[in-house]
Structures are given as C-alpha cells and as structure tokens.
C-alpha cells in the first residue's frame, strides 16, 4: 500500500518536473530577452537571471531611430494588406473549391498545395524580375505581392475546409431564394465564416509579419524595410560588438504584440493550424 503510494508520488513529482521544465524551456529565451532589454548598457555583459532594476534606455535608443519606427509601420502596412488580399481571394476560391463540384477541382487543389510547398528561393530570381518590371522594387507593394505566394495557398486551403463544413441545405435555401453564387457567398456564408476568417487572417498576419527572405531581397533602403530585416541588420562597430541591449529591446517590441495576439486567440490558432494540416 505505502509502496504504491510512494511510487505514485514519485511519478507525480516527475510529471510536474517535466511540466515545469517545458514551461521554462519554452519561455526562458523570451524572458531572458526582456531581462536583457531592461538592463543599462553598463551591466550588459554581466550574466543575471532576474530583473534587478528597470532601465528603459535601450527602448528609448531603438524607438528614437526613425528607420526602426518606419520599419514597424512598413510591417503593419504589408501584413495587413497581405491579410486583406489573401482573405478576399482566398474566400472566393474557397467557395469554388469547397462548395461547387466541377471538372478540374482536384487539379486546382493540388496546384494550390504544390505552390505552398515551393521553396521561396526557387522563385527568387523570377520574382525579382516580375517586381522590377512592375516597378515595385524597394516598396511595400513588392512585398505585399510576393507574400501572397505563401499566404494565399494556406488561406485557400484552410477556408476550403471550413467552407465544406457549412450545411448543404443552407446553400440550397439560398438557391431557392434566388441568390446567385456571389450573393450566397457574401450574404450567407461570409457572416458565418467570420471566426474562420479571423483565424486564417491571424495566421497570415503572423506569417507576413515574420517573413525575412523576400523582405531582405526586395528592399534596399532603411525606409522601406520591415521589422525582421531591420532587427537582423542592427549592427555595431564590428561584428563582435553587436549592440545587444537595443537588439533585445527591438525584439521585445515586435514580439509582444504577437505574443498577446497568440495568447488571446490560442484556441483559434490551434484549430486553424490543425485544419490546415490535419484535415487539409
């Protein structure tokens, strides 16, 4: 009796140790970034695990740089535009793929899936040319266009799974009421798909906000950069003197909104991720 109790207690202890390890492992790097960002530069190179004193000078240093603030604005503009475009095109495409049976539907689905597997580098030179021809080089427009390559297939795929879950009879009722496909989509389905659109939009936003390769390649000047590029390119006197305080401050600034969004919408995000991967 006592032996099984002991065994159970040990197991329970082990389990909780594991849980704590997981939480620390997952959150420590971010926590440590916060700790670092709040240190004055004089203490930067003393390793410390706790926030001893709060010093905002790193944040002041970062936010007083016009280019960094501009890059935040660029990121917001790019990410929001990408979300809007992906949702608009994704929703119409998802209606077609999710609710209408027609010849070639499977082929279109495979095509969309195929594009989502494209390595970005594989289209880099061709896309570079397209962007230059359209005169979108070094502008948010070029990034908005190029980001559809990874947001659109994903959006289409997830919205299609959600679209398929809507009952057939609802659409038939709309047909009986004389609604055209466009009216059915905008007046009947769209209001019902808001949760799905919020999820997909959020995932597309995060993907666009985090993108690096295109942003690095298709922009040239500080004023057109997005946040990831701006952070990657923060540099000091030499490679060995990186200004870690401001870098961490900038990292925290661009991450906090995302972390808050993710924590608020965690249920949605999980369902969106699994809809895109498991069911898709």
């Amino acid at each position, binding site marked *: 009796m006592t032996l099984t109790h002991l065994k159970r207690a040990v197991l329970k202890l082990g389990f909780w140790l594991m849980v704590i390890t997981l939480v620390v492992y997952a959150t420590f790097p971010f926590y440590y970034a916060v700790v670092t960002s709040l240190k004055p530069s004089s203490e930067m190179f003393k390793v410390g695990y706790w926030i001893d004193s709060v010093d905002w000078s790193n944040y002041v240093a970062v936010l007083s740089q016009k280019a960094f603030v501009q890059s935040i604005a660029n990121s917001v503009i790019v990410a929001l535009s990408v979300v809007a475009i992906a949702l608009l095109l994704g929703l119409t495409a998802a209606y077609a793929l999710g609710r209408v049976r027609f010849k070639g539907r499977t082929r279109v689905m495979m095509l969309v899936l195929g594009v989502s597997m494209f390595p970005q580098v594989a289209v880099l030179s061709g896309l570079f040319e397209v962007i230059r021809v359209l005169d979108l080089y070094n502008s948010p427009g070029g990034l908005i266009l190029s980001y559809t390559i990874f947001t659109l297939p994903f959006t289409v795929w997830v919205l299609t799974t959600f679209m398929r879950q809507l009952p057939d009879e*609802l659409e*038939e*009722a709309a*047909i*009986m*009421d*004389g*609604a055209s496909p466009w009216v059915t989509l905008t007046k*009947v389905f769209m*209001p019902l798909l808001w949760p799905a659109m919020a999820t997909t939009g959020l995932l597309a936003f995060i993907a666009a906000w985090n993108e690096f390769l295109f942003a690095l390649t298709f922009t040239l000047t500080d004023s057109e950069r997005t946040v990831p590029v701006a952070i990657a390119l923060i540099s000091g006197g030499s490679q060995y003197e990186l200004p870690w305080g401001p870098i961490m401050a900038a990292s925290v600034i661009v991450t906090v909104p995302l972390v808050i969004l993710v924590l608020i919408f965690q249920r949605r995000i999980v369902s969106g991720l699994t809809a895109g991967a498991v069911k898709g």
Partner: protein
Amino acid sequence: MASVQLERVSKRFGSTHVIDEVSLSIDHGEFVVFVGPSGCGKSTLLRLIAGLESISDGDLMIGDKRVNELSPQERGVGMVFQSYALYPHMSVYENMAFGLKLGKASSESVAERVKETARILQLEALLERKPKALSGGQRQRVAMGRAIAREPDILLFDEPLSNLDASLRVQMRNEIARLHGRLGSTIVYVTHDQVEAMTLADKIVVLNKGHIEQVGSPRTLYERPASKFVASFIGSPSMNFLEGTCRSTDARETRVELKALGEVVLPYGVDSNAVGSPITLGIRPEHLTPVQATGSDAFEVINVEYLGNECCVYVDSDAEQFLTCRVEADTSIARNDTVSLRIDTAQAHLFDEHGQALVRAQDSA
C-alpha cells in the same frame, strides 16, 4: 395555374437510377405527399421539382411550361427544408425578406409581404429575433414563412416535421393543413411517416426503389392497396400477411387455403388465373379478431398491449411472423390464453406471388 406534370422523369447518378421513368400529374391546389422508405427516391424527386437537381431524362411541366432548365425561382417554387436551414445570422424578418429583396421588390412591398406572412404564421412578435432564440416549432414556422413570403405557386416540404417532438408534430401538422386551406397553393410534401401522409394528403404517392408503387387518396391506399409493399407500408400496426394457395374463384367468392388458418372464403371474386397458384392474404389488425378458443385451431397469445383506447393482441401463428389483432380496450384476452382467429373476409386482400394485388371482380367491372 400551378399544376405539375412529370413525364417519364428519370434521375441517374452515374449508373444508378435513383428515379426511374416516373410519370405523375399534380393538380393545381392539390396537397400531394410522397411517402416511402428511406432511399426510395422521394427526396430526390422533390429536389427535381425544386430545381436543385437536374433531370436526366423526361419532362417536368409546371402549368403548361417545360421547366427542366429553369432555376427554382423561375419555376415559382418555395421550399421548406428538413433542417429548416434558416440563415443563422439574420433575424426572422431578414430571413423572410431575403428572397423578396433578391427578387428586387421595393422595400415597402417587402415589408408588407413579410408582415402579411408573419401574420398568417403568427410570427409578428418574433420578427426581430435570431433563429438561435427560437423554439423548434417557431423555427419551423419561420422556415415556412420564408418559403411562402414570395408567394410561390408551388410549395415543397422536405420532411419538415422530422426534427420535432411528437406533440409538436401533431400541432404543426394541423398548422400546415390550415395553411394549405388558406393559401390554396399546390403543395408537394415528402415524409417517411405514413401518419403524416394519411392525415395531410389529398393524394399520396408511394415510392419504392425509384418508381411509383401507387398513387391515390389516403382511403384508396388504405382500403385498396395495389401491392403488398403499399399494404405493409400504410397503416399502423402493419397489415398481417398469411401465406396460402388459391383454390377457386367465381364472380361472388374466392376460396383460399391458408397454411396457418385453413380454408377461408372471401366474398368477392378475382382473376381466375390465380387459381392453383400461391397467394398471400393480407388482413389489417382491426379485421382480425381473436376469440377464446373452442376448437382445435387454437393459437397462443404472446402478448397483449394495452393502449388506452384499444388493445393490441399478438398471436403466435405458424406463419413466420406473429399476427397482430386490434381489439376493444376492455378485452378479456390475456397473455398465454389460447385463441382462435376470425377474419373479416370482406376486408381481406389478396396478393399474387409477385406482391401485386389481385383486383376484385366488382372493382374492375
């Protein structure tokens, strides 16, 4: 005029015939019920009329116009769905107004039509509610309201009461009957419930495996079923069937030898070709009376169900199924009694070995 004509209408999905050359005519203002077991094609037939499915072969006429190619709205049909399919994000008013607005009616006439419809269906107090906030019966009425708001010539109902509980079902059945009287429009109604079919229909269409078994008034179907299938499908409890052989028939009477009950004489004649061949005798429970046994032809009573207004007596016969009798509620027969059975021979039906009814001589004359 909104009569409906189906002329050799077929529907195929790939190589399966869901509807096989069905011909049917529905008069203006008639209440027609399609009934049959699941998978018989009754819903598909309704959807063909609605325009939700395309017709593979044959002609569908509404009035004197061929409508095979027309959209539901051009056909002038309204439909009530099994799941109601109300637009969840719209209020009751918006649900009913949606089709009217799409029909480009002016906003005053939309408001007027919706109000009028709401009055007919007693939905006036609920117009601002969302479907979520309605009871099952209220949702049902909204679904009907949405279908009739555009004043279609033909109303289609696809198992509209199957999601309601029993007491509400009776109430809604009466409301539908009243609505039909009031609107006078043609109604085509699909159900698998033969009680709904019997109580609502002017004309019942019994479907089986994609073809029509019988068309007729509820009384005709009950009293003169054209086949064993119809006979067993209509009526509850189901008709009893007894195997036997036809011994002789003339203008006035028919002698049959039943395996379980011996010789029975029916007071009508049938086609003389039946003589000598195996037949099935069908008898409804109310026409089969058990009496306390006297002779050797006694059967054991398996169970007696007391239903308040009547009793069902189940009798173990030598037939593959036990026999059901309907008797007065105050019957003295109890379980394990031995009884002999009396057949009300005038009410007995005869079916040939293919399950087709043997027509009575006086009926065919």
